[in-house]
């Protein structure tokens, strides 16, 4: 099953289980969604798939109000870049609902955001804006890297009584994989490769970069652990601490640019814990997208995000002496 199909199946299974699960978004019906993720859902669940006008702020705010009453809406934002239009309903309203109502209301809404570059769509259709939501208290943020996690985490997101932002890297849509029988929970990171020399921490598409980097390192006799964060908020600090202490060396890889990013938060977490901090044998390496908007041309676009070969060269320098 592909990543795309896993997301579709997660939505379909939840819609079948709960009539309150309703999907809203632009061109998600007959068209099948901009990335064909919702293809055919309207046939399976004719009363739960709602095509909306181009009114991201309006329909998201509407879904927030409906969620407070009893609906479990899923919102598809065509490109994650349009996050700017939903900031008010999500950050100022959904995220604060439980708190500001003194616990009277909750807001179980899931926002699906296809993100990432590599598609040649220019700087307003290729961003990965998860970091901009990290500071919005009251949100949960999920960014899976494979079909199985996507399936289980999306189902958990829909069932969660809090607003969840679900980031789907567009390059992952065709990725094939089996759906594991044991579900992964929101808030838990995963060790996807085990090695004793260095711990590489990544999430979403960058997990693939991390695994490729680990393969190159292995050719040079360096054994890497790779941690897939899966959930960005709340961050699984325990797994991070445990896996860093194991090797004493850390490399962080993320696709979006670095300023104020997820890696900075992971770095802070590592430095907060005395035992983990003391276990470090060298500086922490940070590989992130360049601090530029994503360029259009193919080669430049690729050069903007970290590549495995470049990461491996820098990591190998740690072992030179």
């Amino acid at each position, binding site marked *: 099953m592909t990543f795309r199909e896993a997301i579709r199946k997660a939505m379909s299974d939840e819609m079948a289980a709960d009539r309150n699960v309703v999907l809203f978004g632009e061109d998600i019906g007959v068209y099948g969604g901009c990335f064909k993720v919702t293809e055919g859902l309207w046939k399976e669940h004719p009363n739960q798939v709602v095509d909306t006008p181009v009114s991201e702020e309006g329909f998201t*705010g509407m*879904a927030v109000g409906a969620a407070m009453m009893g609906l479990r809406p899923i919102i598809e934002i065509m490109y994650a870049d349009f996050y700017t239009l939903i900031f008010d309903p999500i950050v100022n*309203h959904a995220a604060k609902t*439980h708190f500001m109502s003194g616990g009277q209301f909750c807001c179980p809404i899931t926002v699906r955001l296809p993100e990432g570059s590599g598609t040649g769509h220019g700087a307003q259709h290729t961003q990965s804006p998860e970091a901009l939501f990290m500071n919005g208290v009251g949100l949960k943020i999920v960014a899976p890297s494979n079909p199985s996690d996507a399936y289980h985490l999306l189902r958990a997101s829909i069932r969660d*009584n809090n607003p969840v932002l679900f980031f789907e890297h567009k390059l992952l849509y065709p990725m094939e994989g089996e759906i594991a029988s044991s579900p992964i929970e929101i808030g838990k990171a995963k060790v996807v490769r085990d090695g004793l020399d260095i711990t590489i921490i990544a999430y979403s598409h960058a997990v693939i970069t991390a695994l490729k980097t680990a393969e190159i390192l292995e050719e040079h006799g360096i054994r890497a652990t790779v941690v897939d964060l899966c959930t960005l908020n709340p961050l699984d600090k325990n797994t991070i601490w445990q896996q860093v202490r194991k090797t004493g060396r850390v490399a962080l890889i993320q696709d979006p640019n670095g300023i104020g990013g997820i890696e900075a938060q992971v770095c802070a977490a590592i430095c907060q814990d005395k035992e983990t901090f003391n276990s470090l044998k060298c500086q922490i390496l940070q590989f992130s997208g360049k601090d530029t908007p994503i360029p259009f041309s193919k080669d430049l676009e690729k050069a903007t995000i970290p590549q495995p070969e470049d990461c491996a060269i820098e990591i190998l320098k740690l072992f030179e002496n």
Partner: protein
Amino acid sequence: MLNSRYFEEKTEELFKAGLIHGTTHLANGQEASQAGLCMALDDGDWIVPTHRCHGFTICNGSWPVAMFSEMFGSRLGLAKGLGGSMHMPDKQVCNLGSSAVVGSGVPLATGIAFYQKFQSTGSAAFATSTTQNPRELAPQPVKNMSVAIFGDGASSRGSVHESMNLASIWKLPVLFYCENNHYGMSASSDKMISIDRISERAAAYNMPGKLVDGNDLEAVYNAVKEASTYIKEGNGPYLLEVMTYRFKGHSKSDRRLYRTCDEEQMWMLRDPILLFEQKMIDCGYVTKQEVLDIEKQCHEYMEVQAKIALEKSNDKLSAQEVEKMVYATQEDRK
């Protein structure tokens, strides 16, 4: 109306005495708009007020002690003291609470209407467009509606216009209730809005729009009743513009430099409470003395409410309790 007025007067007094932290937005002068609306609602109709929410909250049936307590920041407050003057949600009486982002409560209210129609018709089929055009569906009667309350200032927000379009294509049971008090903070609606009557904007969204004297309780009540009937027959949204005036400034820091004393005086002569009392006396329903007695009774009632809240005002949530309020648990909704 009297309870609203005395609540605002007491609030102002408590602020001036330094007993309440933060800011407040008083609605003295807008009581007929608040009472007229709430009196015309049926059980199960929801409201989403504006940041100037005290009057709507009182008229919709909330406990004044819990409202004063909210402003004292105590545990007894409607939002456990986490919201303050602008945030008084009360699920028990179908009040979602206000957004303090002007105009952002309107899509939330539209969402309530979506859910009401969803509950009433059994699914979201009324909004799906793959095999039908939802605009062409026959009206489906609904039991309840949602009221999106907003001011003249908010009428310029994109979220308001987007909500009106959404509500119209899916025939959602929402009353867009524009409380035009002539000023968005200091900005006069004459200068900031491209047309003279906000209600005329209804035409752009294929819904009825009506203008009503917001200082006339009976007129407001009748207009809301008429709109409610139209909406609950399943015809879709309705825009009601209610013309009124706030006697006080925008918030407690406002020196009102943007308007004249003459203008204020003119509106004070049209005080909605005085107009209604006079009408009741003229019709022979009450005597002048009875009016004075009712005023005294309401005034004393609100004094007692404030006193109870003040006595309990030191009972606040602990920092640990506050941290636990950020996320809902899975027990909150199963």
